[in-house]
C-alpha cells in the first residue's frame, strides 16, 4: 500500500491573487484569423467524424487562400477521434511542428485561438489550423459526454444523483431568479432574439421566429428551463485558420486581428459552490486588459448559448451590464441586431442555428469573423463592426467549466 506524499507545509506565494494581472508578453496584434468555414450539414448520416474534420479544414484553408502544405500547427479538442491531434494529423496528412489538444469542453476552440496566437507570437508556428466536428444526431459520442478512459474523481459523489447538462444549468437559472428576480420571460427574450436572426440563415435548424409566449409555453424540461430555452442538437463542424502577421499580409481576404484573449476554469472549490458567476468573469477581464478596450467598445458579441441562462450569465460576467441586471439587459429585444443594445449570435447561434458536436465555441468565432468582415447576412450585419468578441463556456456551468474570451478587430 502506498501512502499519499506527506506535505506538511506547501508554501503559496499568492502569485495568483489577482487573476486579471496583465501579462508582460501579449498576443495583441500578433496573429490574424485568415480563414473560416462552417459545415453546412446539420445531419451527417453515414459520414464519419474524421471526414467532417477534413471537410471543414479544407473549407477554412480555401477561404484563407492557403493549402495543406502551408499548415504548420494543428489544434483540436475532445471531439476529435482516436488520439486527437495524432489521429487527425494522420488522417488529414498534416506535417506540423506544433500541436495542442487543450480540452475545456465547448469553449475549447476559443481557447485554441488564444494558444495559436501565443505559439505564433513565440515563433513556434505561422499557420495554425483549428477544427471541430461532431454528430450527436446520427451517432458518435453521446451528448456532452466524451468517453473518458479514466473516470473523474467526482464520479461516485455526483453521478448517482443523475446530474444532466439540463438540470445543472437549470440550477444556475433558479439561483439567478432567486437572487435577482430574473424571470422566465426575460430568459425567453434570448431565444426570441436568436430566432429573429436565424430566420435569415438558410442553414439554421430552427428558422421560425418565436415569441416570448412560445418559449414559456413550451414544456418545462428541468425547472425553470423550458424546451425552447435549450440549444439544438446538431451534427456538423467548423474550422479556423490563425496566421502570423507576415502571412496575413500576403492574403486577399478581409483581415481580422487578434486583440486579446483570456481563459479560466471555475469548479466546485472543495464544496464552496457559488452559482452567481462563471469563470467568464476572469477570462473576459484578462481579454479586455490585453486588448486595451472595455465592454462598451464591443459592437458585436458571439455568446455561448447552450441555454438561455448561459447567455445571461456571460453578459454579466463579461461586463456588458452589472451583476443581476442581465434579465433587464436582454428583455424587449436587447440582443436583436439593428434594434437592441448588443447584437449577439446573428447566425441564430446554438439556440436556433447549430451546436455541432454539442460544442458551441467554434461557431461563435465564425460568426464574429463574418461580422468583422462585413459578411454576415445583410439583415443582421452590424454597421461599422470594427470590434467583436467571442465567448464560450465549456463543461457544466454549475459544477466545473472552462471559459474562453476572444477579442478581435477588423484590420
Amino acid at each position, binding site marked *: 500500500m502506498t501512502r499519499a506524499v506527506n506535505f506538511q507545509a506547501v508554501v503559496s506565494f499568492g502569485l495568483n491573487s489577482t487573476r486579471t494581472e496583465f501579462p508582460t508578453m501579449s498576443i495583441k496584434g500578433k496573429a490574424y484569423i485568415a480563414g473560416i468555414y462552417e459545415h453546412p450539414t446539420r445531419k451527417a448520416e453515414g459520414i464519419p467524424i474524421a471526414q467532417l474534420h477534413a471537410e471543414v479544414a479544407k473549407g477554412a484553408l480555401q477561404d484563407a487562400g492557403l493549402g495543406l502544405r502551408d499548415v504548420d500547427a494543428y489544434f483540436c479538442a475532445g471531439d476529435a477521434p482516436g488520439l486527437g491531434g495524432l489521429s487527425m494529423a494522420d488522417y488529414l496528412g498534416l506535417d506540423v511542428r506544433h500541436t495542442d489538444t487543450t480540452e475545456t469542453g465547448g469553449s475549447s476552440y476559443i481557447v485554441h485561438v488564444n494558444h495559436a496566437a501565443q505559439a505564433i507570437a513565440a515563433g513556434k508556428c505561422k499557420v495554425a489550423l483549428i477544427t471541430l466536428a461532431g454528430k450527436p444526431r446520427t451517432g458518435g459520442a453521446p451528448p456532452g459526454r466524451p468517453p473518458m478512459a479514466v473516470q473523474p474523481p467526482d464520479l461516485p459523489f455526483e453521478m448517482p*444523483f443523475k446530474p444532466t447538462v439540463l438540470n445543472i444549468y437549470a440550477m444556475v437559472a433558479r439561483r439567478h431568479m432567486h437572487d435577482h428576480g430574473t424571470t422566465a420571460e426575460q430568459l425567453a427574450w434570448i431565444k426570441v432574439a436568436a430566432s429573429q436572426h436565424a430566420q435569415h440563415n438558410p442553414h439554421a435548424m430552427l428558422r421560425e421566429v418565436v415569441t416570448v409566449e412560445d418559449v414559456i409555453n413550451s414544456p418545462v424540461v428541468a*425547472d425553470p428551463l423550458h424546451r425552447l430555452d435549450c440549444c439544438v442538437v446538431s451534427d456538423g463542424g467548423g474550422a479556423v485558420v490563425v496566421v502570423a502577421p507576415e502571412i496575413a499580409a500576403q492574403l486577399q481576404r478581409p483581415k481580422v486581428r487578434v486583440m486579446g484573449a483570456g481563459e479560466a476554469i471555475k469548479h466546485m472549490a472543495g464544496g464552496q459552490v457559488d452559482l452567481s458567476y462563471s469563470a467568464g468573469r476572469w477570462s473576459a477581464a484578462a481579454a479586455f486588459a490585453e486588448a486595451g478596450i472595455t465592454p462598451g467598445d464591443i459592437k458585436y458579441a458571439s455568446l455561448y448559448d447552450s441555454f438561455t441562462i448561459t447567455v445571461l450569465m456571460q453578459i454579466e460576467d463579461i461586463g456588458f451590464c452589472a451583476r443581476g441586471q442581465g434579465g433587464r439587459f436582454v428583455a424587449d429585444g436587447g440582443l436583436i441586431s439593428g434594434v437592441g443594445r448588443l447584437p449577439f449570435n446573428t447566425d441564430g447561434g446554438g439556440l436556433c442555428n447549430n451546436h455541432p458536436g454539442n460544442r458551441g465555441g467554434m461557431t461563435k468565432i465564425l460568426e464574429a469573423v463574418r461580422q468583422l468582415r462585413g459578411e454576415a447576412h445583410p439583415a443582421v450585419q452590424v454597421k461599422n463592426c470594427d470590434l467583436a468578441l467571442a465567448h464560450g463556456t465549456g463543461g457544466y456551468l454549475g459544477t466545473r467549466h472552462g471559459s474562453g474570451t476572444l477579442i478581435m478587430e477588423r484590420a
Partner: protein
Amino acid sequence: MSDKKKDAFSADVALEAYWEAARGGRLLLKNCGACGKTHYYPRPLCPFCMSSDTQWLEASGEGTIYSWSVERRGTPPYAIAFVALPEGPTLLTNIVDCDFDALAIGQKVKLGFETRDDLPVPVFRPA
C-alpha cells in the same frame, strides 16, 4: 453501474472509511488540520492548501437547499439540488420524498441514505 466502476471505488483505500460510514448512515466530510477548512467530496490532500493532514469529520445531517431543479423528463421525474451543510461544503444531491412544487431555496432538509447501484449515497428530504 458496471462492476468495473464499483471495483475502482472500493479499490480506493482513501475512501474506505467514507463508504463504511455511508453504509452505516453517516456522511463523512474532510477537515484539514493545517488550514482548518472542510471540503467535500473527500480527498487525501486538501484542495485549499495541499496538506495531507486531512481528518474525517461527520456531518450533522442538517442542510439548506442552495438551488434545485426537477428533471421533468426523468422516468420518473426527480429533484436534484445543491444542499449547503452547516459544516461549510455545499454538495450535489437529490431531494427525495418531497412535493416538487413545494421545493424552495432556503428550505431546511435532513440527511438520509439511499442505495444506488449498490453504492450508499447521501440524499436529503424535507426537514
